[in-house]
């Protein structure tokens, strides 16, 4: 596995996928400078959202607060996940499209090693990029708002970032499962986007009365990463803390299923 990981790392550094990922993140950063205060998929009463992504809400306040600045740092997660899905689908499925995965299998490399090596690379890059992404916004928002966070506030922000990052990793596990099932970049990206956006739509319509929601729809929301992001990014950790461990644990199931499928599936 070490050899294959080494090769995947080399391939990552020479591929367009990583460049595209970095470019996408920089583009989001750049666009945030153009657009001022905005609410990206949110709902609630008052200045601060109850759920959703809110950027630069401190611009409407006399004094910026930790919550407004922190939410602004995390708010662009609403765009980050899309770039991440594109990276995951491209990096994994490219080898199927150009046929190089055939060589790896033909030379006797275990398919599970191939799958897990790619998974490790993708998850590692995703979490590192996400932390880099949030750190960049932390610097930007600190400069724009003029609010200097205390050490405890920084630690709080790091914790929220880490939880968001775990949800991103869980999302990637699902995307990887789709990649094994479908082996087509466009279809995987399409299905992932539809799944995540639909989760956001259902939650936005029903967040205030989740207990009365039809059970199937309720569980659809609870298994959707948007449910967690929209609460974490609006500083409402309490609402999701009971469900989060189950969600993270459950995300290992598609990972294991992907491993079983790749071992049996014919490679075309």
């Amino acid at each position, binding site marked *: 596995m070490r050899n294959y990981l080494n090769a995947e790392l080399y391939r990552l550094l020479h591929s367009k996928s990583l460049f595209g990922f970095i470019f996408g993140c920089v583009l989001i950063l750049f666009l945030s400078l153009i657009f001022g205060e905005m609410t990206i998929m949110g709902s609630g009463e008052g200045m601060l959202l109850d759920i959703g992504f809110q950027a630069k809400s401190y611009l409407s306040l006399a004094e910026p607060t930790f919550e407004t600045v922190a939410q602004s740092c995390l708010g662009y997660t609403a765009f980050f996940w899309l770039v991440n899905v594109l990276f995951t689908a491209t990096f994994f499925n490219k080898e199927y499209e150009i046929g190089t995965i055939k*060589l790896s299998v033909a030379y006797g490399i275990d398919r599970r090693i191939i799958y897990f090596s790619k998974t490790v690379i993708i998850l590692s890059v995703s979490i590192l990029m996400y932390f880099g992404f949030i750190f960049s916004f932390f610097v930007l928002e600190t400069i724009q708002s003029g609010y200097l966070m205390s050490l405890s506030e920084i630690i709080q922000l790091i914790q929220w970032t880490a939880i968001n990052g775990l949800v991103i990793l869980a999302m990637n596990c699902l995307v990887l499962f789709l990649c094994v099932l479908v082996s087509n970049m466009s279809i995987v990206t399409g299905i992932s986007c539809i799944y995540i956006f639909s989760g956001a739509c259902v939650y936005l319509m029903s967040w205030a009365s989740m207990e009365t929601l039809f059970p199937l729809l309720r569980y659809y929301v609870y298994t959707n990463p948007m449910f967690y992001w929209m609460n974490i990014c609006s500083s409402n950790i309490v609402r999701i803390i009971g469900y989060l461990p189950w969600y993270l644990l459950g995300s290992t199931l598609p990972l294991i299923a992907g491993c079983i499928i790749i071992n049996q599936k014919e490679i075309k």
Partner: protein
Amino acid sequence: MNEIIFQTENITKSYKQVHVLDHVNMTVKRGEIYGLIGENGAGKTTLIRLLTGLAKPTSGTLRLFGCQGKTIAAQRSRMGCIIEGPSLYPEMTAMENLEVQRRQRGIPGKESLDHVLALVNLNQAGKKKVKNFSLGMRQRLALAIALLGTPEFLVLDEPINGLDPVGILELRNLLKNLNKERGITILISSHILSELNQLATCYGIMSHGKLLQEIDAQELEKRCQKHLFLKVSDTAKTASLLEVEMHTNNFRVLPDHSICLYDYLEKPDLISAMLGRNDITLYQLTCKGEDLESYYMKVISGEKQCEII
């Protein structure tokens, strides 16, 4: 007796009741250049896909270097292959493509990359990305990748496709050298029978998922040997004159008194002049014999006739 590198026993591969491979029994021995020939859809690529582990057989046994079942995967590292065309990273250079493969397989030493590139004449490719390569260059790079790690068994699925005549000649010479000097066993599938004719030491003829015949080059040559077919008025005198005047005894007299002469194939006029000088009437003088293509068509049509019956 030569070691058996690859062997199948009643290998069958089916997709929804359709037998793509039908009880194929095939043997490739060490040191051979095995030419796998067949029409489109004969099952050549499917057989290669089973060999390389890209697909699993529906039934039957596959042995590679004497191993079968779960132990076969470890033996695949002793192979080099080109499957269904060159598989390359288009955004990388030739050297980078080789480097990825070298790292994947844990082959030590970067010097081996320069060596295989020189072997296929791609050492001048430089920083050119593969997406800008011609088809011939891609085929050569694919071959370079197959040669990484000095494999004992090369499996090449239609490697000649897209190559120009110079490229085909270079590839043929390279494969012959690899086989002769390094003892690499080669399994090569191709439609271009004239090329295989100059390369292979044995042949497997496939059609509609069945391996119709396995035959080595020497046996094939005997069956296809070219000769001058003579029908004359005096067979005994002709035979004597061939020995005395034409200084050859490389001929056979058939039961129907016709003669098969294996010499003077390019100079039938000398034979006809000799017969004329000696007042022997020549009824028929034709050049007969088959090449691989006509032999293959005969084998295939024999199979088709069985299907019609």
